[in-house]
Structures are given as C-alpha cells and as structure tokens.
C-alpha cells in the first residue's frame, strides 16, 4: 500500500488535529536505519518530512507519536486495516 495513503488513513484514525504534529517512527529498509516521519496539516493537505532523530519536543507543542514493530522487530507504519481487524478479532 502507498505510504502516503497509509499515513493519511492513520491521521484520520488517530484523530490528529490540524494544529498537531504526527510523528511516526519507521525503519528505512534501503538505508538500513530508523527514521521519523513528521506529518503536518497544511493548506495543500498533509506534508511529510523525514528526520533521523526525534525532533526536540516542548511542553507547548501539540503532537502525537506512533510506533509499532513488525514480527521481526522493525518499526513500521501501522496499518489502520490491521488495527481494526485486530480489535474486532480479539472479541
């Protein structure tokens, strides 16, 4: 699935507000390193930038950080479909 679409779905599922930043921890397979995807709402939709380190976070900032490991322990962008399926199947 396209990563941008996956992030848009996640933004909605988590109920991130337009004045908040969404930070997703993610393993970059091609560079073999962890990185952070910084997602912000702009007039043109969501913009996504990448950093190697967690940005400095202050108490006056509004943000959500989300992280999930796959079965091999690598950080992945959580799939909203999987989150819903897990919730429903674990009755």
């Amino acid at each position, binding site marked *: 699935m396209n990563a941008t679409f996956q992030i848009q779905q996640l933004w909605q599922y*988590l109920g991130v507000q337009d004045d908040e930043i969404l930070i997703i921890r993610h393993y970059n397979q091609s560079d073999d390193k962890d990185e952070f995807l910084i997602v912000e709402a702009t007039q043109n939709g969501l913009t996504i930038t990448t950093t190697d380190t967690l940005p400095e976070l202050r108490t006056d900032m509004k*943000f*959500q*950080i989300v992280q*999930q*490991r796959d079965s091999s322990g690598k950080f992945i962008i959580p799939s909203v479909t999987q989150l819903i399926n*897990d*919730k429903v199947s*674990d009755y």
Partner: protein
Amino acid sequence: MAQRIKTNIKFYKGLENVADRLYGFVTKTNGSWKGCRETESKKKIVFVDPSIAKDIIPNMLYSCTLMPMRSETGFIAKSATILRFPATIKTICRKNVFVVRITFGNKEIIYDPSSKEKRKNDIQVIAQLLRGRNDLENAIATAEDFIDNAFMVRRLYEQSQGNV
C-alpha cells in the same frame, strides 16, 4: 471424513457440570464459524481436546482447528496456537493531556502521569505488565519502547505543571 474448521477462539473454565474442562463458543457468520461470546444467541460449544488442554491459557485468543462432535452439538478443538498482537504505542501531548496508550488486539493500557492510580502512573508497573503478556508480540521490546515514551511524557508533564 468430517470437515475441519479453522477459526480464532477464546476459552474459559468453570462451565456447570464440567468445571474442569476448557470451553468456548463459535457462531456462524457469513457462512463461516467464528469465535464468539457466551451471550451470542445462535452459538455452538467448543471443548478443548484433553491432549492439548494443559497448554491453554483461559481468556486468550487462539487460532484453532475444530472437528465437529459426532452428536453435531458442537466442536472439539484439536489444535490451538496462541495469537500474539503487535503493540501500537501512541504518545499524545496536547494542552493538559499527557498520555501514552499501548494498544494490542482489543486491549489498551494507559500511562498517565497525572493519574492517582498506580496502575496508570507507575512506569515500572506498566512495563512489567507488558513484559509478562502472553498475547503481545515483541513484549520485551514493547516494554522498552513504552519506557522511553513514558519518561518523555512524564518530563513534559512535570514541565507543564511547573509552568502553571
């Protein structure tokens, strides 16, 4: 040969007259059998085969292979593999809200430094709880990830209280 069914079920103990046997329930949804709660009206009972019963932990979700009983009143679980869910750790900081939520399956554990309850405000208590979960994938790594996020949230929460 009777048809085998694959589905996910939770088992419980303490059924009247057969208190020592593990049991669960399935219901037919859209043509296939699925695990369900006891409160479901159209359901069939599932007993665990005694040969695998010793490894079953009550109230955990298992991927099972079922065989119909000869009487056709229910099923016998012939194999059961525990299902482990990946944890999603959500750290939320916004005006007056400083929390870490760990979700897996339909469960949610919350760390809230402003809470008066130890099960919600004690980082080590929550980390130990996570390490001991049988239904959590990467339980040890999840506990360490939680600790990192919880310390950050606690620092920001304390700073916010100092600024009031």
